[in-house]
């Protein structure tokens, strides 16, 4: 399914993907890592991480600063390798295919990303959303307009911006810019949406809107979110992975179970806010 199919942006519904997974791989994990390790130069950021991201719901990746949670997230869409001198070991499978051997450009078309700091391009709102579809060869104006509206609606931004799509995206507020980032990622109709601490630069109200939007999106696609906010993880995630210093996966399971009765003492300490 990781194909460079060029001019058409086709969405496979989450139900069809789940059926496919169950039938062909007898699994419900859309992304699976096996003893995955990652190095920046000589420094090891992740150590033998093995986990399966369930296709349904929101999966949160948590852990203290520097534990490698962003590195793990960015491994899923091959963004880590933009830095020089990086090395990966182990495997990551996306829909059964070796993600580390795939074409990163094709991977990113299926696995979208929202960044920690809002990063709208210095272009109009419309051109920001249409950027992805255009990259994939869609030129037809009406088709683009359709995708732009659909994406903005899904990101709960349409009503606020529909009358000034030609205005610069930089004129939006921080919260709006972040929802624009979500809409921009959605416009290529990804199967998975990665979110790297999307609320860390936002006020509580804007955070609330993003969280609500994220919950709704999880009905239609797989969401993986990095957060260091325990309450946020509790509010929006169904599954949680806790990494600890040195890039070791300490705990992975349903959010309720992990929060209520963590296996390891260190995770219990982390979750009770004793360090982090």
């Amino acid at each position, binding site marked *: 399914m990781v194909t460079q199919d060029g001019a058409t942006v086709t969405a496979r519904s989450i139900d069809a993907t789940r059926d496919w997974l169950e039938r062909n791989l007898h699994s419900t994990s859309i992304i699976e890592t096996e003893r995955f390790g990652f190095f920046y130069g000589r420094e090891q950021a992740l150590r033998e991480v093995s986990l399966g991201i369930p296709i349904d719901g929101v999966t949160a990746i948590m852990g203290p600063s520097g534990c490698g949670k962003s590195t793990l997230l960015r491994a899923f*869409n091959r*963004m880590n390798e*933009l830095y*020089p001198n990086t090395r990966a070991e182990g495997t990551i499978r996306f829909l059964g295919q070796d993600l580390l051997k795939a074409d990163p*450009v*094709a991977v*990113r*078309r299926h696995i*979208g*990303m929202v*960044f920690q*700091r809002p*990063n*709208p*391009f*210095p272009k109009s709102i419309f051109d920001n959303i249409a*950027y*992805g579809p255009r*990259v*994939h060869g869609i030129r037809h104006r009406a088709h683009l307009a359709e995708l732009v509206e659909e994406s903005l609606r899904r990101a709960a931004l349409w009503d606020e911006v529909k009358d000034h799509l030609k205005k*610069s995206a*930089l004129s939006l507020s921080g919260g709006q810019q972040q929802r624009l*980032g979500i809409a*921009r*990622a959605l416009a*290529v109709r990804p199967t998975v949406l990665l979110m790297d601490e999307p609320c860390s630069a936002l006020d509580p109200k804007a955070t609330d809107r993003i969280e609500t939007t994220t919950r709704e999106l999880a009905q239609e696609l797989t969401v993986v979110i990095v957060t260091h906010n325990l309450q946020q993880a509790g509010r929006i995630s169904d599954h949680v992975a806790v990494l600890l210093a040195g890039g070791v996966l300490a705990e992975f399971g349903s959010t309720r179970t992990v929060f209520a009765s963590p296996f390891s003492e260190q995770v219990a300490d982390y979750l009770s806010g004793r360090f982090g």
Partner: protein
Amino acid sequence: MIAQVTSEGQRRKRIAQRIAFALLTLSTVSAFVALGAILYSMISNGVSALSWQFLSEFPRKMMTEGGIYPALVGSLYLTVGAVLLSLPFAVASAIWLSAYSRGGLWVRVIRVGVNSLAGVPSIVFGLLGLAFFVKVLGLGVSLLAGALTLALLILPILIRAGEEALQAVPMNFREGALALGATKWHAVRTVVLPTAIPGILTGVILGVSRAIGETAPIMFTAAAFYMSRLPETLSDKVMALPYHIFVMATESPNYYKTRNLQFGAALVLLGMVLLMNLGAVTWRARVRRRKQW
């Protein structure tokens, strides 16, 4: 006992500070004084030569009378030509240096090369232009050969400015584009490069100011002592302001009589640089406002 707030040591430190500040101020002021002196002598000696005829007429009577029109136009041609020839290569190199190369030996070698090129004396460019463009390529002494020589001269300036401008584009933008499945080249073309344009324009300003005032590189490659008409093709010789000033000051049958013409021409040259800078700065400010982040 009340704390003692004045002492001999503190007084001495205060004096030392005053002296240091005075010296720093003096150094700064001296730069302005030098600039002021140049401007003053140019304006006081040259302003009498300025007139519409001076700008729009050909020189007459062995350049002891008349205007500087062909030199003005020639300088414009040479400079614009140099920028047009240099810019595509400079931008391409800057993109390669900042976006594609992963550091390493080659990049360092090339960077050293670019920096050394910037330090080469302009007369060397002139001789290179004569040997290579004029002779080997057989372009002859011509507008094209001169523009090419000047293009080489400003190439390192444009590359450096371009590279800096590209690197100043937030990594965020690049990542945002790549995360949407754009290739590196697509990201550069659609997001990084457009954002870097104001910075690249800064390089163009610097390049123009440098190219328009140079005499040595065009002396053997393009400049004509005198022409009775404007250049019509790329293989024509051209007159150019800096060379024209040089000629009037050294080859004129009567240097003293043409003093005010020389100063006037120098003043016009300075004015052109100023005008071009002003134009580019305004343009840059406008582009920047549209691309604010």
